[in-house]
């Protein structure tokens, strides 16, 4: 049953996460994924994402506050936290670090089909070269031995973007430096005027 589970990420959620990573390319960043289980339990729909932090990611207090607010806001829309996104500090670092695993473990307690997404820098760099429609991310899920395993590295499309032209739009945003408008939870805590919902981002 677990091996058939597919993950589908919506365009806006996907693009937000990559833009966030590009805005803070000299540090690690993370974000939270929201969505629901659907298709009779066959698909996890990731419909929204919230970029969280770009500094001192291993600290609890800002994370706890963020998760409280995010859970509260999205439960009104019938969405819950279904995953976590992490982009490592270094370009060639493909290790899933302790912090990401801990946060993933925490989400697992409430949503066992949790998706851990890690930015794939090599794929991101190669994006403008080809017509790749697959997301520039690696997917990890928890197996029955409580380990995080990468899923889909054999080419099976376990993680797909809902809209096929998402990467084209992403490339467009990258060239227009759209990431400059991105607000994450760190920015909000530094200046509560800034809205982590980014309501105007895709208008």
């Amino acid at each position, binding site marked *: 049953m677990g091996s058939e589970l597919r993950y589908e990420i919506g365009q806006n959620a996907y693009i937000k996460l990559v833009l966030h990573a590009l805005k803070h390319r000299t540090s*690690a960043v993370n974000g939270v994924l929201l969505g629901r289980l659907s298709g009779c339990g066959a698909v996890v729909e990731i419909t929204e994402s919230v970029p969280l932090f770009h500094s001192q990611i291993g600290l609890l207090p800002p994370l*706890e506050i963020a998760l409280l607010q995010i859970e*509260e806001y999205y439960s009104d829309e019938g969405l819950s936290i279904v995953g976590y996104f992490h982009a490592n500090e270094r370009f060639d670092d493909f290790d899933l670090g302790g912090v990401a695993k*801990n946060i993933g473990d925490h989400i697992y307690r409430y949503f066992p089909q949790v998706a851990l997404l890690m930015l794939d820098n090599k794929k991101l760099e190669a994006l403008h070269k080809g017509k790749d429609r697959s997301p520039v991310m690696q997917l990890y899920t928890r197996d029955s031995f409580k380990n995080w395993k990468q899923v889909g590295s054999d080419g099976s499309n376990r993680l797909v973007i809902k809209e096929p032209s998402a990467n084209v739009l992403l490339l467009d945003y990258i060239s227009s430096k759209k990431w400059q408008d991105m607000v994450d939870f760190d920015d909000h805590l530094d200046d*509560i005027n800034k809205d982590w919902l980014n309501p105007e981002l895709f208008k």
Partner: protein
Amino acid sequence: MVSNREEAEVNRLENQVDNGGGGAWEYLCHVRKLKLRRSDKVLKHGLSILNDPKKRSSIGPEEWTLYEQVAIAAMDCQCLDIAKDCIKVLQKQFPGSKRVGRLEAMLLEAKGSWAEAEKAYSSLLDDNPFDQVIQKRMVAMAKAQGNLSGAIEWLNKYLETFMADHDAWRELAEIYVSLQMYKQAAFCYEELILSQSTNPLYHLAYADVLYTLGGLENVQTAKKYYASVIDLTGGKNTRALFGVCLCTSAIGQLVKGRSKEENDNSELQSLAAMALEKSYKQRAPSKLSLLNSTLRSLKLSS
């Protein structure tokens, strides 16, 4: 570290220059003074001065400082040819200079030629073992190659000599946090607080680390440090206000079933909650109801 006012001033200048309003040199000086990392802008605006003979001569002898600044920015943006050109100019002007030698070694580092860069830096260090910039490059190289334990070792060695270097303590603390070595991170922040006891950001980071470490004693201490941040910042620091609420809630959980001695501490939490409410009402009214439910869930769990 940069104050809000200083950052606002730099951003204003940046905006001005970006939109063709001039002031590039002033902007570049600010960035250099505050040691900010804005390499793409520095590269763009620095080159606009260097490539224009009239502008170049108007800054006189500072021209060479600008070449150095642009070279480093170019390396950060992986525009290695531009960096090489800047270094060539400096080599011509200052033949045999150690400072230029440093840039040459940095270029090797930027190319990813780690072994050659290390050789170059080591030989420069042989001549001047107290060159702080080069010692930090060794740390940076270790970090860039993913050798975090090596970076930690270098930094600790560096700090034995240069124990007043706050940036180094902060870098070390951040590396420890990324590796979830919170006790060691706490030690770094303790050193920083000892040397700069009125800097609220160190108190804040220390409190965050203590809370993350957990346990009744740590969370109680964290609460005291959040309170001192509130004191030092006139109640304006959102993170510290939230911190107080989190601590009170966590302490309540940890002492459940024990005596009621923690009751008087809930006054601090109410004050913090009120301050947060006032702040959100004024500046983020759309998030006010979210804030209220967050505060409610923190009070309930205690």
